[in-house]
């Protein structure tokens, strides 16, 4: 039977042997460093992505949905969506009036790909939205500077506008937006407010937006052949199902749908983005897993290789140990522990290495590539634990064959002199 002291001593001998061969130990763990670094970087990117996504949802309001002719999740065919009848302002207002279980509902009209000018600066591809002043009470309408437009401005079709964060940042890098007059599609607008930043990284298109009173919007861009969407705030996440059911039922009546007929509108929730994110996740995962597996194969081969070199280099030492009473299993344990420690060392090195990358990314690279803002400047600690566990198994696996080989070395070696 193997005894505790044997395990402990084998471990100590392994540790000693790693300490006295620093360079070799470092080289041996290099493959694992690469492998574990991939795992860590992948986990880092994914956790950043998850956080960016949930942050964006929170900012837009997890209890908000949009009734729209279009389907945001991309789950419907383009043809089917295009052939749906527009949602008219009358229909929108009818729905808004009839809803009972929701906190707030406002119509929204959109103009895609609008162009903004301020002095010589041009900014294209923004979404101009017209809505009611109540939109300012939703998370999507919360203000960073200035104010949202008022009921009065809504009534009198004032040419006032609130800028989304990205529009503001791009057009007014000096930060002096309020009170300036900009041109939207050639029409003058007074900037009265800047909205809070909502989207992070992949979701920053949300901030590529301007809001104006709905009446102003219709006056400026025309009211005919236009489809409206209705922003509905359920009031709480728990009420979401309830609200959705009511919205769907009432909307079907308004749209004159017969039982069994399919909806000719979509109820879009901020969660619809999840599908988009899932695609990104899948891409990151499949690239990451592929790279990781590959580098682990390299890492394992690296350790096996170095362990083989190392045991043959120490043939005599191992022979001496056996001559002095080391059993097969003693040597086996020592070598397996060595490989395990080397691999663990690799994991620790990669944790520092990737932490460094994360820190550099979060502090320096972000200055030049702002898109990396979704990445945390710190490596999550739970990833260290995962990496360590993986590396321990990798080490044991890689050490096994060389260890068995070494444990079978003949103690007679100790007596042979070259």
């Amino acid at each position: 039977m193997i005894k505790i002291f044997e395990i402990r001593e084998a471990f100590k001998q392994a540790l000693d042997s790693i300490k006295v061969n620093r360079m070799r130990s470092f080289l041996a763990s290099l493959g694992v460093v690469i492998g574990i670094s991939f795992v860590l970087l992948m986990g880092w990117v994914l956790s950043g992505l998850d956080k960016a996504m949930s942050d964006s949802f929170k900012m837009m309001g997890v209890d908000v949905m949009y009734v729209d002719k279009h389907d945001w999740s991309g789950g419907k065919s383009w043809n089917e969506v295009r052939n749906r009848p527009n949602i008219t302002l009358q229909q929108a207002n009818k729905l808004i009036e009839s809803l009972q279980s929701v906190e707030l509902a406002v119509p929204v009209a959109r103009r895609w790909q609008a162009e903004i000018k301020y002095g010589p600066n041009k900014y294209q591809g923004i979404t101009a939205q017209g809505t009611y002043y109540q939109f300012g009470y939703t998370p999507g309408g919360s203000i960073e500077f200035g104010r949202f437009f008022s009921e009065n401005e809504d009534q009198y079709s004032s040419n006032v506008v609130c800028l989304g964060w990205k529009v503001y940042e791009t057009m007014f890098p000096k930060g002096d937006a309020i009170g300036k007059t900009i041109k939207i599609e050639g029409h003058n607008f007074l900037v009265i407010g800047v909205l809070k930043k909502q989207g992070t990284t992949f979701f920053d298109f949300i901030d590529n937006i301007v809001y104006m009173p709905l009446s102003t919007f219709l006056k400026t861009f025309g009211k005919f052949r236009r489809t409206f969407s209705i922003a509905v705030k359920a009031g709480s996440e728990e009420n979401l199902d309830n609200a959705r059911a009511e919205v769907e039922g009432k909307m079907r009546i308004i749209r004159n749908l017969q039982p069994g007929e399919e909806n000719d509108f979509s109820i879009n929730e901020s969660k619809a983005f999840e599908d988009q994110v899932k695609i990104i996740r899948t891409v990151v995962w499949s690239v990451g897993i592929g790279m990781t597996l590959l580098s682990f194969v390299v890492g394992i081969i690296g350790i096996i290789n170095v362990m083989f070199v190392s045991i043959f280099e120490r043939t005599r030492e191992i022979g001496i140990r056996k001559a002095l009473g080391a059993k097969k299993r003693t040597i086996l344990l020592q070598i397996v522990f060595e490989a395990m420690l080397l691999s663990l060392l690799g994991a620790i090195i990669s944790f520092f290495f990737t932490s460094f990358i994360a820190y550099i990314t979060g502090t320096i690279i972000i200055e030049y590539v702002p898109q990396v803002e979704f990445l945390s400047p710190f490596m999550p600690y739970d990833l260290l634990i995962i990496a360590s566990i993986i590396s321990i198994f990798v080490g044991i696996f890689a050490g096994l064959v060389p260890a068995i080989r070494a444990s079978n070395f003949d103690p007679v070696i100790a007596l042979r002199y070259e």
Partner: protein
Amino acid sequence: MDNNILIKTEGLSKIYQMESAQVIALKDINLEIKHNEYVAIMGPSGSGKTTLMSILGCLDTPSSGSFYLDGVDVSSLDDNQLAEIRNKKIGFVFQTFNLLPRANCIKNVELPLIYSGVAKEERYGKAVKALEDVGLGDRMTHKPTELSGGQRQRVAVARALVNNPSLIFADEPTGNLDTKTGEEIMKLFAELWKKGNSIILVTHEEDIARHAHRIIKLRDGVVIDDFRNPNPVIA
């Protein structure tokens, strides 16, 4: 069987099977060595001295014949039991010292104790004592590379006796040392013998063999002479 008999071999042979030929390293060796004997195994290079020692020291197994150590049939033992015998009953001193180059003296001497599971403090105490006994009390934390040949061999002797084995094998222990240093090592063996240990010394040098009380001569794997040394050199 006589209780006083430490080693007994019957028809012991060792054949090394090479690719093309076979080497008969030992042929029909019949020996009896008692407790507390001081034996020198002599013979020219290639005569089978090291091979004999490796079998008697439980490092290797014979091709045929039998070998009893302390009345135990060694061929019936498995690897682990052989390792335990080497660890507890036998101490080895090698021509090239065979110290672990990167470990200091204490760690080298502690090695047999580690493998027999002696607790840390006791182990350290015994290693210190063994090093003091060979006159290296002031070199404990030195590494072998920082020591002279004679000092290294003393460390090896300390390591061989630290676990209180009854049988000490030395294969050409002075082969890599100058005459004077060699004599000092021989003195250590004489002391060990006086304390009741059995010593089997392998050498091809007459001067060294003369310290032993019995001399066994080998040639081409055969015992050609086995006689009592009437007046061993007192080191």
